[in-house]
């Protein structure tokens, strides 16, 4: 699904990703952990095509295609979804309108007709119930005035409606209360499928109790310095990152 080789990326001339390697096979859930400032969000943004990053070396293949050659909107239509660490508030752009426009953009890309408005709303309502979101949020501006946790739920709602092939969720668990974490986790779990992959960026082992990963990677100073199974997350919880930072240096 996703193959990253020797990825180097700079921001304002400063190198953040320094030869990152990561492979996520179809159907798998991978967790990426690492200290603050190690480059996790940078990786997520580079994958989604955010402007402002210079890719100085390396390749990224997504479903066999050169991901870096695609524009941000093409990546999304091809089935890449980024759940933002800090979802943006867009007052005046209707939440449900964005959802529908996003769905239709992807459908058009696949040569499908526009979604039926009524069926679409039925689907959205069903997913909202799953995310325990109040229906009134639909008619509000995108994330406008949403609490931190509500914004994260809204990200997952979008993901559930868009059904991406690969979702990169950047700290979707941060800022969630214990119940919300379960809601979000069960939402994510409903998407797990043999033809779908997930990359979870997280600081907390707790999320991984609910969404059990196939692999855990540790990102330190712009590189994956260790990979393992889910027990690696438990080990990190106990030992922190210092021992790995030492190794990386």
């Amino acid at each position, binding site marked *: 699904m996703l193959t990253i080789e020797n990825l180097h990326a700079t921001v304002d001339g400063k190198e953040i990703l320094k030869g990152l390697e990561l492979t996520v096979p179809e159907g798998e859930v991978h967790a990426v952990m690492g200290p603050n400032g190690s480059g996790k969000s940078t990786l997520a943004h580079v994958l*989604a095509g955010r402007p402002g990053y210079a890719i100085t070396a390396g390749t990224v293949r997504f479903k066999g295609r050169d991901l870096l050659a695609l524009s941000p*909107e093409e990546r999304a*239509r091809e089935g890449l979804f980024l759940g933002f660490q800090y979802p*943006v508030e*867009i007052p005046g752009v*209707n939440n449900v*309108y964005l959802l*529908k*426009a996003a769905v239709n953009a992807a459908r058009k890309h696949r040569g499908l007709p526009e979604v039926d408005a009524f069926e679409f709303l039925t689907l959205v309502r069903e997913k909202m119930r799953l995310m325990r979101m109040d229906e009134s949020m639909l008619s509000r501006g995108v994330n406008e005035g949403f609490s931190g946790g509500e914004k994260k739920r809204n990200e997952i709602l979008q993901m559930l409606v*868009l059904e991406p092939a690969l979702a990169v969720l950047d700290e979707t668990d941060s800022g969630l209360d214990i119940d919300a974490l379960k809601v979000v986790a069960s939402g994510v779990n409903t998407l797990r499928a043999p033809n779908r992959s997930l990359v979870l960026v997280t600081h907390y082992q707790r999320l991984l109790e609910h969404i059990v990963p196939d692999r855990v990677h540790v990102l330190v100073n712009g590189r994956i310095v260790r990979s393992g199974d889910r027990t690696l997350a438990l080990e990190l919880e106990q030992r922190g990152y210092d021992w790995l930072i030492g190794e990386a240096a």
Partner: protein
Amino acid sequence: MSAAVLTRLRDEYGAARAALPGSVIDARRRSEAIEMLCAQGLPAGREENWRYTNLRILDRARFTPAQPSAEALPPLPEPLSGFARYVFVDGRLRSGATAPHGVTVRSLLSGSAADGTWRLASELPEARLALLNEAFATDAACIEVRSEAAGAGIELVFLAAAGADSGASYPRVRLALESGARLTVVERHVGVGEAPTLVNSAVRVELAPNAHLTHYRLQHCAARTAWFDTLTAELAADARYDLLAVGTGALASRSTVHARLTGRAAQLALSAAALGAAQQSQDMYALSEHLAARTSTVQTFRGIASDRSRVAFNGKIAVREQAAGTDSRQSLRGLLDGAQAEIDLRPQLEIYTDEVRCSHGATAGKLDENMLFYLLSRGIAPEVAQHLLKWAFLEDVVAKIELPQLRRQIEHGLVGRMSEAVALKELL
């Protein structure tokens, strides 16, 4: 601005005066107006409050009113249901309707000599182009509303059809609401054709105590129109004036609004949205003069300048000595959408009394990169994402349009593809 223009203006007036209808404005008043205007001179770019207006057009303009035309009407905006529509072509009434209960609508072209004496009553130098209208006006819509008119609707459509070679058009309106009367007016300025056109409109609003006027003004003139407009309003005690202006058309547009809040607790809400594209200039000057206690003004402006256009809003709130307890709020925002576009926002506050609450904010900037990327990351095409964000930017003004049909029309005009969002909103 040279003396030659004024000489020409006088000459044109001299040649036209005999044919100008006295029932619209009496001959003496017209001559006074021309003299006053010539004494002051036409507005010039070096004057602080005219800096952003495209005034060069006046150098070459032909001021003489266009001759009445009998040409068939082009397609006009869809009429608003429940509204009585009056269509004026080049400033003359073409077709009318039955006025709603409690409302009198008259074309002064067929009025009496006594009608010709009202004027705009603003000494403000910024309002002096109304004198040009006063000198040349060929007709006037006089709308009087009695208290029994509860929420009636009038639609005025001003079509500029004549090219500038054949003359200018002078829309003129007087709106007088009696004590306690309510009215909604939709005033549209539209045009046809590719020829340059000069429009000079003048509108007078008089609100008696406790009257409430909701006034939508839509400037969708043709691409090469120069639209100069002056509106003066007088608000008595507890009167409420909701004025919402949307400007998207014309090559050069300048609107001057002078509202005087003369009665205690009078309220003015002025909301304006302007879109500039290509080489357009959209300029508005709005003065709210507080002359009585506990009066209030809310000014909201949202402007988007694209390409090489220029959008300007100059909003002044003056609180005179006798206006203790005044409450005024100003929120002016501009969006720059092009390296060569220009936005000029000027909030001005002039306070001569203590005990007032005034807040104002003015910001101009570009589209938010974070918002843009968020939309792209959801698969939205860049053009659509930009449309959406512009749309969102105007929402503070557009959301104030209380007539769904009109809002839809305006939304269509503003961002063609957004009609779907509206349909969906309603479904929810």
